[in-house]
């Protein structure tokens, strides 16, 4: 019988700790598949953040350096400058990349660092219990926006992909989602392209991934996937935001 699906070599044999229906596990797997397919496992280095992906090193079997909250792009810069031949990528939540780490992200992008940011947008601070994130939607209730996010006092959801695509230093930026098989396939393709751009040294690359967090959204996994389609994508349109040829 022909084997058509199995555990990627780069994915360790341990069960994910994430909640059922969580997007992080899907994204971890996509990365592991790509590291196998692109033959990058032996030269990849990742900087996992504080956040629900803090244990990424338990699952993706590559060298990793834990970054302080938000500082992934700076830590990755340090690594890449020392190891220019490695594939260096950050893995960051929306709180991490778009709030506390905004400056590090913008400046790494502006310098055109040859690194890739895997940016997981789940519209909340998940690990700390579902507080409001910079990407929380207007009207969305979280534990620190109990009456719904109000643009007058809390601002609008921040769109990092669009913002970063205006920088000359960036070469590939795409927003994808992991809420259905078709989108998951596209997400994988986007990460693959970003990695390839990094290897080709074209500039800073980022893939923003709309990712379900059923627990903090107070939905079941199916409702969460639907909510991405019906609500999140309206605010955060999918697609390639920047690609230099």
């Amino acid at each position, binding site marked *: 019988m022909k084997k058509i699906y199995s555990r990627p070599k780069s994915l360790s044999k341990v069960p994910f700790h994430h909640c059922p229906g969580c997007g992080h596990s899907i994204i971890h797997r996509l990365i592991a598949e790509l590291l196998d397919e692109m033959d990058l496992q032996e*030269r990849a*280095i990742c900087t996992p953040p504080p956040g629900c992906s803090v244990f990424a090193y338990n699952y993706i079997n590559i*060298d990793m350096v834990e970054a302080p909250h938000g500082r992934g792009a700076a830590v990755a810069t340090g690594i890449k400058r020392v190891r220019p031949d*490695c594939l260096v990528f950050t893995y960051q939540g929306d709180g991490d990349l778009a709030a506390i780490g905004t400056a590090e992200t913008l400046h790494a992008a502006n310098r055109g660092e040859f690194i890739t940011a895997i940016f997981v947008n789940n519209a909340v601070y998940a690990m700390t219990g579902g507080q409001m994130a910079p990407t929380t939607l207007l009207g969305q209730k979280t534990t620190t926006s109990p009456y719904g996010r109000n643009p007058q006092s809390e601002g609008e959801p921040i769109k990092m992909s669009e913002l970063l695509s205006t920088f000359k230093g960036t070469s590939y930026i795409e927003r994808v989602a992991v809420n259905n098989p078709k989108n998951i396939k596209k997400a994988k393709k986007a990460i693959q392209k970003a990695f390839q751009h990094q290897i080709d040294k074209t500039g800073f690359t980022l893939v923003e991934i709309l990712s379900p967090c059923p627990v903090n959204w107070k939905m079941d996994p199916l409702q969460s996937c639907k909510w991405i389609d019906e609500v999140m994508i309206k605010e955060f349109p999918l697609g390639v935001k920047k690609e230099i040829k």
Partner: protein
Amino acid sequence: MNKELMNGTSAIAESAIQAGCKYYFGYPITPQNELPEYMSRRLPKVDGVFLQAESELSAINMVLGASAAGARVMTSSSSPGISLKQEAISYMAAQELPAVIVNIMRGGPGLGHIAFSQADYFQSTRGGGHGDYRTIVLAPCTVQEMADMTFNSFDLADTYRTPVILLGDGMLGQMMEPVVIPTAKNKSPPRRDYAVTGAKGREQRVIKSFFVEGKDLKEHNWKLFRKYKKIEQNEVRYETYLLDDAEMAVVAYGTAARIAKGAINRLRKEDEGLRIGMIIPKTLWPFPSRVIKETSRYISDFFVFELCTGQMIDDVRLSLEGSGHIHFYGRPGSVVPTPSELARIMARHYYQSQRKKKK
């Protein structure tokens, strides 16, 4: 290398390069700008990387990444910038990553002033960031010592896998003195068997400080503790000056020690020849407690002089464990005292203690 006239910050920069440091990440702040400026000229010429970051936060996290990737790496700043670096210094202490962090102290708190100061003693010697850790703290008194200590600091950082703070001040950083830059003969930095290089032909390497499971954090903290004990046993450095016949011992470090030395020399030359000696800590952590305690067996009076309202005095007090009598003079900003000004103050304390002894 030949003897050259150099300022302190340039001497640090060149010594770092001689010690194998090829990576520098920093952010401008007075009074240490000559250091990044020197690095920006020199590093590209030795296949190194100089990068001006968008903040001290970012700079120190680049240091973290470069160190994890196996490089000898340095950053420098002055007091307010060092405050910003503390989070990542805590991470590096926890992750056991070597790095050299230069603090050319200026006045504080807040924006303080841009002239020199010694007000960051607590911040440097008590860890500085969150958590149960220490950093090695070196305190040079001369431009030559700045060069030598920088050169050795990279080995110290690698030997103990820990961040090292070189604690200078604006005076030492700016002044020019003749200096011989140490050079390495056939010395290449040690290979780091924990560095992330891509897991080729070996197991994955993970550099982390998060230990949520079971006894892990406790064990990690005890491991760090044992390392710090070893540093305390092996790495204490100090100098003594004219202690043999002294009736009073000054304790001062860095620029303050130089002023105090000038004052002591004056007082010893006077008619009556005041018998004052000095202990100069060269490592502030680990602190030379034992020599202070031992000195208290034959000297009862200790005069602590600092360019702040008194921070190291706590360590002197702890070292004395209740014995001896402590005098203090501090200058928390503005103009520093000249040796003759300090001499008058020291003499007053000296005579007071002599009177007390006669009673």
